[in-house]
C-alpha cells in the first residue's frame, strides 16, 4: 500500500516537475547591428575623419568646422610613424558658428589625414587643400562602415589615381580591395590583404596597378579593423579627391559643374543583378525628370556625359531601383573618357572646350562631339539685378569630383566658405521637390550679419556666391529650409576647382 502511495506521489511530482514552463529565451542585444550609412550631423559628440589633408611646403590645408552649439573640438593629425604620438590641437567653437583651422598651424609635414572630434553637436567638418596649381576638398566622413565604394577612378594616360586608406583607430586594419572596370571584374594583385597599422595610412598608386582604364570602381572591405578610403585623381593640371561612400537608391548632386567644366556622372553597382537607374535634371527653368535612364550592370561601371542631356549647369538626382554608388566628376571638355557607346551618326563634331584640352586616345576623345545641347543657353547662377551689363562669366579650369548626398534635409551646416585665397565660393541648393523652398541662410562666423531668405522654385536649384572670408569674417553658413533640400559647395579659382558635398543635420 505504502509502495503504491509512493509511486503515485513520485508520478504526480514528476509530472509537475516535467511540465514546468521554460524561461523566456534571451533575446538579441538592442545594439550592434550594422550602422546605417549616416552622413548627417547629430546632436551627439562625434568624430569626423578627413582622409586627405596635406599641409606642407607647397600646399595649404584647412579643417573647416561648423557647429550649432558651443563645442570643444580636437583636431588630431597622426604621424607617418605609427610609434610617434599624433599632433593635435584643441579649439573652442561658439555655436552656432564656424571656424577654419589651418592644418599647417598644427603641423606642416605634407600629407596627413586628420580626425576632428567634437564633444557635442550638431557639428560638421570638411577639409580643403590648395596650392598654386591645385584645389581639392572633401566632406569629412562621420560614419565608418566596413564596406566602402569608390567610383569614378581613371588610370588612363594623363591621369594618376591613388587610393588612400586611412586607419584612425588603434586597431590595425586589414582590407581587401576589389575593382570593376569597363572590362568587368579586374583582379588587383596584392590587394587581397592590405595591412594598415593603427593610426596611420597607406597610399596605393592604382595607376601602376591597373593602368589604362577609363572607368574603374573600387570596393574596399575591412576584414578587420576600420579604414576610411578616398580616391585622389590628378590630371596634371588639377586634383580631385573624394571619399568612399555606401550605396543608395537616391543620390542628389546640387552641383554638377561650374562654368568651363563639363560634368560626367559615374554609376557603379556591386553584387548580383543590374540596377535600373533614372536621372533627373534640375535646371534653372525647372526639372527634367527621367532625362536619362540606364541599366547599370554589376560588372561594369557607367560614365554618363551629362552635358549630352542638357546644357550645364544643372543639378542632378539619380534614382535607382536598387542601391548604387554615384559620383559627379567635372573637368574641361574632353577630360573624361566616355564609356558610353556612341553611334557614328550621333557624332556632332568638334569640341568647344575652354581651357586646356586633355583628350585621351580613345573613343572618349569623341566626347566633345556629343555636346549636343539639349538646352542651349546659360544657366543663370544667381538672380542678378536686371539692367546691369552682364559680366563675362568666369570660366574655370580644373578637376572636381564629389559623391552625392543621400538624403535631402531641412537643415544644413556648410563650413569652409571663402577660405581659399583668390577662389570663388558658392553654395548650391537643390530643391528636388514639387514645392517652393524657402531657405534661410544664416552666416556663421564673426560677422553680425543677419540671416537672409531665398526662395527656390520647385525642381530647380540656386547658386549663392559667397564673399571671401577676409571680407565677411564668416567661414560658414547654416541653411534652414521649410522643406528638404540638398546642398553642396564649390570652390573655384585659378588654382583649380573643388566640389564639396554638404552635411545635413539629422
Amino acid at each position, binding site marked *: 500500500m505504502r*509502495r503504491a502511495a509512493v509511486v503515485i506521489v513520485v508520478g504526480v511530482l514528476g509530472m509537475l516537475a516535467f511540465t514546468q514552463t521554460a524561461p523566456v529565451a534571451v533575446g538579441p542585444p538592442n545594439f550592434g547591428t550594422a550602422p546605417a550609412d549616416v552622413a548627417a550631423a547629430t546632436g551627439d559628440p562625434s*568624430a569626423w575623419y578627413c582622409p586627405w589633408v596635406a599641409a606642407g611646403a607647397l600646399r595649404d590645408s584647412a579643417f573647416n568646422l561648423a557647429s550649432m552649439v558651443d563645442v570643444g573640438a580636437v583636431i588630431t593629425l597622426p604621424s607617418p610613424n605609427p610609434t610617434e604620438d599624433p599632433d593635435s590641437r584643441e579649439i573652442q567653437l561658439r555655436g552656432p558658428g564656424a571656424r577654419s583651422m589651418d592644418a599647417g598651424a598644427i603641423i606642416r609635414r605634407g600629407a596627413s589625414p586628420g580626425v576632428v572630434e567634437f564633444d557635442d553637436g550638431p557639428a560638421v567638418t570638411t577639409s580643403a587643400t590648395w596650392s598654386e596649381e591645385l584645389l581639392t576638398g572633401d566632406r569629412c566622413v562621420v560614419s565608418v562602415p566596413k564596406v566602402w565604394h569608390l567610383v569614378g577612378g581613371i588610370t588612363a594616360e594623363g591621369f594618376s589615381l591613388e587610393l588612400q586608406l586611412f586607419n584612425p583607430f*588603434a586597431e590595425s586594419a586589414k582590407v581587401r580591395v576589389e575593382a570593376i572596370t569597363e572590362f568587368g571584374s579586374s583582379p588587383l594583385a596584392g590587394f587581397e590583404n592590405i595591412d594598415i597599422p593603427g593610426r596611420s595610412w597607406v597610399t596605393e598608386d592604382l595607376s601602376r596597378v591597373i593602368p589604362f582604364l577609363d572607368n574603374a570602381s573600387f570596393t574596399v572591405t575591412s576584414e578587420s579593423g576600420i579604414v576610411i578610403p578616398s580616391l585622389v585623381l590628378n590630371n596634371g593640371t588639377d586634383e580631385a579627391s573624394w571619399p568612399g561612400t555606401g550605396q543608395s537608391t537616391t543620390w542628389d548632386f546640387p552641383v554638377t559643374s561650374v562654368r568651363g567644366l563639363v560634368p560626367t556622372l559615374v554609376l557603379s553597382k556591386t553584387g548580383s543583378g543590374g540596377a535600373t537607374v533614372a536621372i533627373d535634371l534640375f535646371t534653372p527653368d525647372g526639372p527634367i525628370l527621367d532625362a536619362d535612364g540606364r541599366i547599370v550592370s554589376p560588372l561594369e561601371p557607367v560614365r554618363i556625359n551629362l552635358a549630352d542631356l542638357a546644357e550645364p549647369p544643372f543639378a542632378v538626382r539619380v534614382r535607382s531601383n536598387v542601391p548604387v554608388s554615384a559620383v559627379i566628376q567635372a573637368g574641361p571638355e574632353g577630360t573624361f573618357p566616355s564609356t558610353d557607346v556612341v553611334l557614328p551618326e550621333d557624332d556632332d563634331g568638334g569640341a568647344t572646350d575652354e581651357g586646356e584640352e586633355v583628350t585621351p586616345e580613345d573613343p572618349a576623345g569623341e566626347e566633345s562631339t556629343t555636346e549636343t545641347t539639349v538646352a542651349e543657353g546659360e544657366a543663370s547662377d544667381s538672380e542678378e539685378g536686371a539692367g546691369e551689363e552682364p559680366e563675362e562669366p568666369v570660366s574655370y579650369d580644373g578637376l572636381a569630383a564629389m559623391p552625392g548626398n543621400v538624403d535631402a534635409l531641412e537643415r544644413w551646416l556648410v563650413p569652409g566658405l571663402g577660405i581659399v585665397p583668390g577662389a570663388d565660393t558658392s553654395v548650391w541648393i537643390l530643391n528636388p521637390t514639387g514645392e517652393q523652398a524657402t531657405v534661410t541662410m544664416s552666416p556663421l562666423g564673426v560677422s553680425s550679419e543677419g540671416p537672409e531668405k531665398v526662395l527656390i522654385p520647385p525642381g530647380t536649384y540656386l547658386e549663392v556666391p559667397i564673399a571671401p572670408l577676409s571680407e565677411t569674417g564668416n567661414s560658414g553658413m547654416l541653411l534652414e529650409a521649410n522643406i528638404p533640400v540638398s546642398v553642396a559647395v564649390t570652390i573655384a579659382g585659378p588654382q583649380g576647382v573643388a566640389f564639396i558635398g554638404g552635411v545635413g543635420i539629422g
Partner: protein
Amino acid sequence: MIVVGGEADARRIATEHDAGWIANIGGAVDASIDASHLWIVREGVEPRPDALGSLVHAATQLDASVAGSKVLDLDDPDRLLSVGFATDVFDFPYTGFDSDERDQGQYDVVRDVAAVAGQSVLLRLDLARGLGGPDRSMAAFAAAVDFCQRARLRGARIILVPSSEVLARDDWGNIDRWRERGGRLRAMTKVYAPTTLLWALPMAFLSGLLQSVLALFLGKWRFFDWLRAWGWYLLKLPSTLGARRVARRGRVVGDSELFRYQVTGSVGLKSDITQLSDRVRDRLPGEDRLSVEAIGSEIRRPSFVVGAVAFLFVLLATRSIWTVGLPAIGYSLPFVESGPSAVGAYAGGWNPAGLGSVEPLRPLIGLVGLIQTILLDNRRLAEFVLIAGSWLLGIWGMVRLLRTWGVAAVAGTLAGVVFVSGSGAQAIAQQTSVGIVFAVGLIPWVMRLSLAPIPASWLARIARVAAVAAIAGVVAVLAPLALLIPPATLLVWALVNITDRAAWRAVVVSGAATVLAVPLLFPWLGAADLSRFLSEGTAYWAIPTVTAIVAGVAALSTLLAAPQRLALVAGWGAIIVVAGAFVARSVGFDLGHEVEGVGLALITLGLALIVGPSFESITRTREVGGWRRLVAGVAVAASVFLVAASALTVVGGRAGFPSDEYRDAFTFTAARPGDPTASRILVVGAPGGLPGDDRIVSGAAYRLVSAPMPESWETYLHEARIGDDALAETLKLIIGGETKRAGELLAAFGIRWIVVLDDGDSDRFTNAWRSTFAGQLDLVPLGGGLGNTTFENEAESAVRALSGSENAWTRSGTGYAGEVEPGVDLEVRENANARWGPGEWEQRDWANALAASGDVVEFETIGSRRTQALAAAAWLVALVGFSWVGRRFS
C-alpha cells in the same frame, strides 16, 4: 615509603601506614631522603613479594642506574604486558610481543633495554635528582621512555629484571592517545641532537598524518589525536626547550647510543599496516566460491577494497583542483588570495564586487577564508581540501546514513559515489554552485545524526542536538538554503513512515538543530536582501532524459522488488528526486540560481537513496527471490549505469566542474606594464555568460572584475548603487555611438581593459559588443593570441584609486595602498560611502575623495557586523563544545 599524589584518600592511607605523603613525584625525588635508590610503583600495580629484592640485587650487581620489573596483566597474570621495550626513532615503545603473548619464561634474562615500563622501576636517587625525576607533564609510556633516554645520555645503564614481577592494568590502549603522542614528541626534542631533530620531527609529522589516514580504514578516527598532540607539543615547546638544555647538559653519550636500542622504521605505522593486511586477508574470498550465491556474498565482503577504490576515485576526480585550483568559470572563482582579508571583509568589511558596497558577503566567503587561514593561507590547498573533503565526507556520510536501514558498506559506498559525483552532483558542479558542492558532503551526516537512536540522558540528547546543529550550521554557512534539506527530507521520510516514532523524532531533532543553526548565518542574514537572494538568476534545470529514465527504472524496480524497508528508502529517494527536479525548475515562481542549486542537491541525495537500496537488495538472497530477483537485477543494472555516470568526473579531474575559461581571459593583465591590481576589467558578453552575477544594458550583459583575476568575493553583485548607475549610463552612451573616446569615459571607473567573452556559436552578443568598442579612438585591441576580443584603454588614469598628483594606488585587501602625499587628495573609485578613511571624506560624483595623508586607505569595519560574526563563530564553538562535553560526560 612515600605515597605520591592522589587526593585526601591517598593521604589518609599514607597516614594509616606510617608512610610519608607528597603531592608529586618531583617532590619525592627532591625530598631529603637518606637513601641510595628510589623504587617507584604506580597506583594500582601489585608487586610480587620478591619484586623489590630482585630489582635491588640485579641493579647493584650490574651497577645499573635504572632497573625495571616484568609487567604482567593484572586480569590475566600469565599474559605479558612488558619486559622492557625498545623504541623506534619516534620513541614509540616496541615490545616485540605477539598479541596476548603468554609468559613462559621466554624473556627471563636480565638485559639492557631502551626503556622500562613505569609501573615498577628502581632508580638511583642521585640520578633521579640529577635528571629532575620523571616528566610530570607526560603520559605514562612517554614519561618512561623520556626518563630512560635522559638517563642513558648521562651514561646510565637501564636493565630489565625479569625475576621482579608486578601485576598491572593493561594500558597499552592509550599508546595512540594524544598525550602519549605529544609526550613522545617532547621526549625526542629533549634528547636528540639538532641534526637528528631536523629530519626526525618532520618525519614524525608525516608518519602521524599517514597513520591517521590509515586508521580510517581500521574504523578509527585518529586525526584529532594527532592534531592535538602537535598542538600540545607546540604549546609546551618553551618548557621543552628548557628541559632539553638540562637533559643534554653533562651528557656523556650521543644519539648513536640511543639508536642502539631502537628498531628501524615506524612501529606505529607497521602496526597499522599489519592490521590492515590482516583485514584484507580476511576478506578475500576462497577459491572454491564461484556460485551466484557466492558472488552475492562476495559483494558484501570487499568493503575495504571498495572503500579504497572510492578514495582513489576521489583523488583522481579532484586531481586538477590540487594542481591548478578551482576552475574559474561561472560562479566558481578562485578563493581570495588572503584568507584573513576574506574573513575581515565578511565580518563587517567592504564588499569588493563590482564598484563595491556595504552589502554583506555570503557566509561562504567568511568560512572559506577562515579555513584557508588555518591551512597556512594556501588557497589552492583550501580549495582542494574543501572539494575532496566534501566528497570523502559525502561518501562516508552516505555509508553511515544508509547503514541506518541495514545497507551494507559496499552498497553504501556505491551510493556515496553517486551522491558526490553522479548525475545530480555533476549538475551542481556544472552550474558552478560552489557552496552547494561543499555543503553536500555534510548533509548525510546531519540526517544520520538526526536519525540515530536518541541517547538516554538529557545531557547526551542536548549534545546530540548541538552536534546536529553544528554540522547543519556549517551546511548553512556554505549554502544557506541547503540548511532546509535535512529537515524537509526527514519530514518526507516521516510521512512515508507515518507510524514510526523514530522518524518523527528525527524530524524534531533536525528541526531543532536547524533553528539553532540559524544564528551562524549572521551578519549576512541580518543585512541581506533575501528576496533578491532567492530570485536572482533562473532556476531551470534541463532534465537529462536518459538519466531520468534510468533513475526512474532503478527507483521503480527497487520499490517493487526490495524488502519493505529498503523499498521505502528507495521510494523516499524517488520522492526527493522528483521534488528536487521540481524545485530546480521553479523559474515560474520567480526563483533563481540558489534555489536551483538546492533542487539539484535534493536530486543527488535522492539518487543515492535509490542506488544504495537497489545494490543492497540483490545481496538479500533470502528475502528477494523469484520474479523479484529479476526485477532487482533490473534495478541493479540501472544503478550500475548511475554509478558509471559518476566516472565521467574522472575525465577532467575537476570534480565535475566545467573547464576553466577565465584564467586565459584575464590573467594576460598580469603581463601588461604596471600593476594590474590598480585597475579593473570590464567584462561584457551574453547574459549568464560572465563571471558570477552580471548587469544588463541594452539587452546585453556586463560587469566589472578585478585584475589580474577576479576572486570569489566578487562573485555576487550587489543592488546597483550610484556608481553602478553611472557606469550603466556611460555604457549606454558608448553603445549609442555618442562618443568616440569610450576609453576616457571608462577610465573614470578604473577600467583599463575590456574583455568581450565569447557567447557561443551565434556570437550575437560578442559581435554587438565588439562593434561597439572597435570604433573607439582610445581603445587599443590586444592581439597576441588572446582567445577573446580584448581592448586596452589608452586613456590616462584608468585606475581604481588616483591621487591628485596622478599617482595610482594599488589594492591592498579591500583597501588601497600608496605613497603618502600630505595635502593631496585621493580619489577612490568605489561606490561612495562615508566609512572610507582615514581622514576627511567627501563624495566626489559617485566616488570617494579622501586625504592621501596615510599610506593605506580602507573601509572602516561596521562594528555591529563584526560583533555578529564573532558571535556566530562563538556560537559554533559553543555548539561543538556542548556536543563534545555532552558526549564525554554522558
